C-alpha cells in the first residue's frame, strides 16, 4: 500500500516531490537561459537572478499600475525585460569584446548589485503579493496527493518554454545561425551574418527566459527584490553539474536537481539547502566536465 511509503505519508512525499519538480523547472529554465547566453557571449550572466526578479516585478507592476492580468504579463514581462537585457548587451556587455571572459562575470555581478540595490531601496526587502490567476486557483485531488492547478501549470509552462527553445535552436534557420555563432562567430560573420545583432538577440532571449520564470514564480513566492540572488547560486551549481553544452542537458539536470532537493526535504530536511552543492562536489570528483559536458 502507498499509505505508508518508507515511513512517510504519501501526501508529504509527493507534496515535496511536486515542490521539487517546480524548483527544478525554474532551475531548468534559468540554466537554459544561462546556456544560451554563454553560447554566444561566453559570459556567465551573474545578473540572471536579478533579471528573473525583474520579470516578477514587471508582472506585478503591469497588474498594479495598468491592471493587466497574469496572461498578458506572461508575454509582456519577458519582452520588456528581454528588451532591457538587449540594451544592457548593446551598451555595456559589448564593450567587453576581446577581454578576458571573467570580466563579463564581474560586469554582470555589478549590474546585479545595482538592480537589486535599487529595488530594495524602492520596495524594501519584504515582498509584494501577486495573486494566482483566477483560472488556475484550486486544484485536484489525485488520491495520493492534492495538486494545485497553478503548481501543475508552472511545470507545464516551463517545459513548454524549454521545448520552444529547443525547437528554435534545432529546427529553425536562426537557430542554425545561433549554433554556428556558438561554434565559430568569426566564420559566421564572414558568411555575411550579422553576428553582433545575433548576440544581442541571444542575450535578450536568455534574459527573456529568466523573466518568464520570474512571472511564473510570482504567485508562488512573493515578488521580492532578493528572490533571485540566492536562486542564481544554486543555478550555477546546476550548470556546473550539467554543463552548458546542450539544451536537453540543462533541462534534465535542472529537473533532476529539483527532485533530489525535494526528496532531501522529506528524508533529511537539514541537508536540503546544501544537497545540490554536495551533488556538484561529487560530480566534480567523478566527472569533472559535468554530466552532459564535453571536456574543453
Amino acid at each position, binding site marked *: 500500500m502507498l499509505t505508508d511509503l518508507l515511513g512517510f505519508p504519501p501526501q508529504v512525499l509527493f507534496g515535496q516531490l511536486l515542490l521539487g519538480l517546480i524548483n527544478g523547472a525554474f532551475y531548468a529554465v534559468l540554466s537554459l537561459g544561462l546556456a544560451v547566453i554563454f553560447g554566444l557571449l561566453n559570459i556567465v550572466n551573474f545578473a540572471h537572478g536579478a533579471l528573473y526578479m525583474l520579470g516578477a516585478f514587471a508582472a506585478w507592476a503591469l497588474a498594479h499600475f495598468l491592471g493587466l492580468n497574469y496572461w498578458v504579463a506572461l508575454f509582456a514581462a519577458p519582452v520588456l525585460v528581454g528588451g532591457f537585457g538587449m540594451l544592457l548587451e548593446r551598451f555595456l556587455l559589448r564593450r567587453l569584446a576581446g577581454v578576458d571572459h571573467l570580466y563579463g562575470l564581474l560586469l554582470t555581478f555589478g549590474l546585479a548589485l545595482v538592480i537589486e540595490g535599487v529595488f530594495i531601496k524602492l520596495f524594501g526587502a519584504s515582498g509584494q503579493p501577486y495573486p494566482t490567476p483566477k483560472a488556475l486557483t484550486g486544484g485536484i485531488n489525485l488520491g495520493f496527493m492534492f495538486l494545485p492547478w497553478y503548481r501543475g501549470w508552472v511545470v507545464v509552462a516551463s517545459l513548454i518554454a524549454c521545448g520552444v527553445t529547443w525547437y528554435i535552436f534545432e529546427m529553425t534557420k536562426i537557430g542554425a545561425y545561433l549554433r554556428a555563432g556558438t561554434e565559430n562567430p568569426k566564420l559566421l560573420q564572414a558568411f555575411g551574418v550579422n553576428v553582433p545583432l545575433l548576440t544581442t538577440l541571444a542575450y535578450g532571449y536568455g534574459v527573456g527566459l529568466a523573466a518568464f520564470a520570474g512571472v511564473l514564480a510570482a504567485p508562488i513566492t512573493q515578488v521580492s527584490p532578493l528572490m533571485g540572488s*540566492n536562486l542564481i547560486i544554486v543555478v550555477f551549481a546546476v550548470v556546473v553539474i550539467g554543463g552548458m553544452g546542450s539544451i536537453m542537458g540543462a533541462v534534465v539536470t535542472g529537473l533532476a536537481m529539483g527532485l533530489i532537493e525535494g526528496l532531501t526535504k522529506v528524508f533529511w530536511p537539514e541537508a536540503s539547502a546544501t544537497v545540490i552543492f554536495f551533488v556538484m562536489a561529487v560530480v*566534480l570528483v567523478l566527472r569533472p566536465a559535468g554530466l552532459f559536458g564535453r571536456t574543453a
Partner: protein
Amino acid sequence: MTTKLGYAVALVLLLIAPFFLYPVLLMKFLCFALFACAFNLILGFGGLLSFGHAAFFGGAAYITGHAIKVWGLPTELGLLAGAAAAGIMGLAAGMLAIRRQGIYFAMITLALAQMAYFLFISAPFTGGENGLQGVPRGTLLGMVDLQDNMAMYYFTLAIFLAAFWLIARTVHSPFGQVLRAIRDNEPRAVSLGYDVDRYKLQAFVLSATLAGLAGALKTVVFQLASLTDAHWHMSGEVVLMTLLGGVGTIAGPAVGAGIIVALQNLLASGPLSAWVPVVLGVIFVICVLSFRRGVIGELRAFIQKSF
C-alpha cells in the same frame, strides 16, 4: 626606486595614522587590505577568479571567535587556529575547484562558499543570525592588553606587514614565477613539465589561509564574527577591492581596500547609507568597463610612460 619610495611613505603613514584617524577604522582597513592581498594572490598571479573567498574569511572568523571565547585559547593561538581552519577549507574547496577552469572555477567556488554559508547558519557554534558576540581581545603574549585600541592597532599592523611581506615574497619567488607562467599560458606550463594542478592548489591554499587570517584578525578587532563575513556579498566586495586597486599588482588590493572601506565609512553616516550596494555595483561596472588596470595599474602605466 619609485616603488621602494612608495612603500617607505606608506609604512610611515601607517605607523603615524592612529594618531590622526580612528584606530578601529584603520584596523578594519588593515583586515580588508590583507583579505584583498590574499585574494589577489590567486586572481592576480594565478589567474583564477575565486568567488568564494568569503567562506575562508568568515569561516576563520567563527573558528577564531569560538577558540578564544569558548575554548579560552590565547589570542595568538586563536588567530592561528582560524587561519589553519581556513587553510583546510581552502584545501578541500581547492581540490574540487581546480578540476575546472575559467568561468566554471568562479561558479564552483561560489557554490561551495554558499554551501559553507548554509552550514554556518545551521551549525550550533556560530550563533546563527546573532553571530558570535563579545569575543575577548585578550592579551599579547600575556603582557600587552589588546583591549587598548593603540596596542591592538600595532599588533594588527605587525600581522598585516608580515603577511604582506609573505605575499610579496611568494610572488617574486620561483613558485610565483611558475604561477604566473600558468596564468599566462597553461598548456605551455604543462608542456614544460610543471605539475600545474599542484601549483594552483598550493596557491589556493595559501590564499585561503591568509584570507582566513584576515577574517580571524577581524573577529579579534571587532570582537564579533557574523554571517555577513561569510555571505557572497563579501566575496564580491573583495573582488571589487582587488579590481579597483589593480589586479596582479602587489600593493593594489590594499589601496582598493582602503578606498572601499573609506567610502563605506563616509556613506554609512550620510543620506546615502541605504545605497551602498548600488554605489559598489556602479563602481564595479565602471571599473570593468574602463578602469581594468586599477589605481596602481594605471599609476604604473603613467610612470612608465612619463619617465
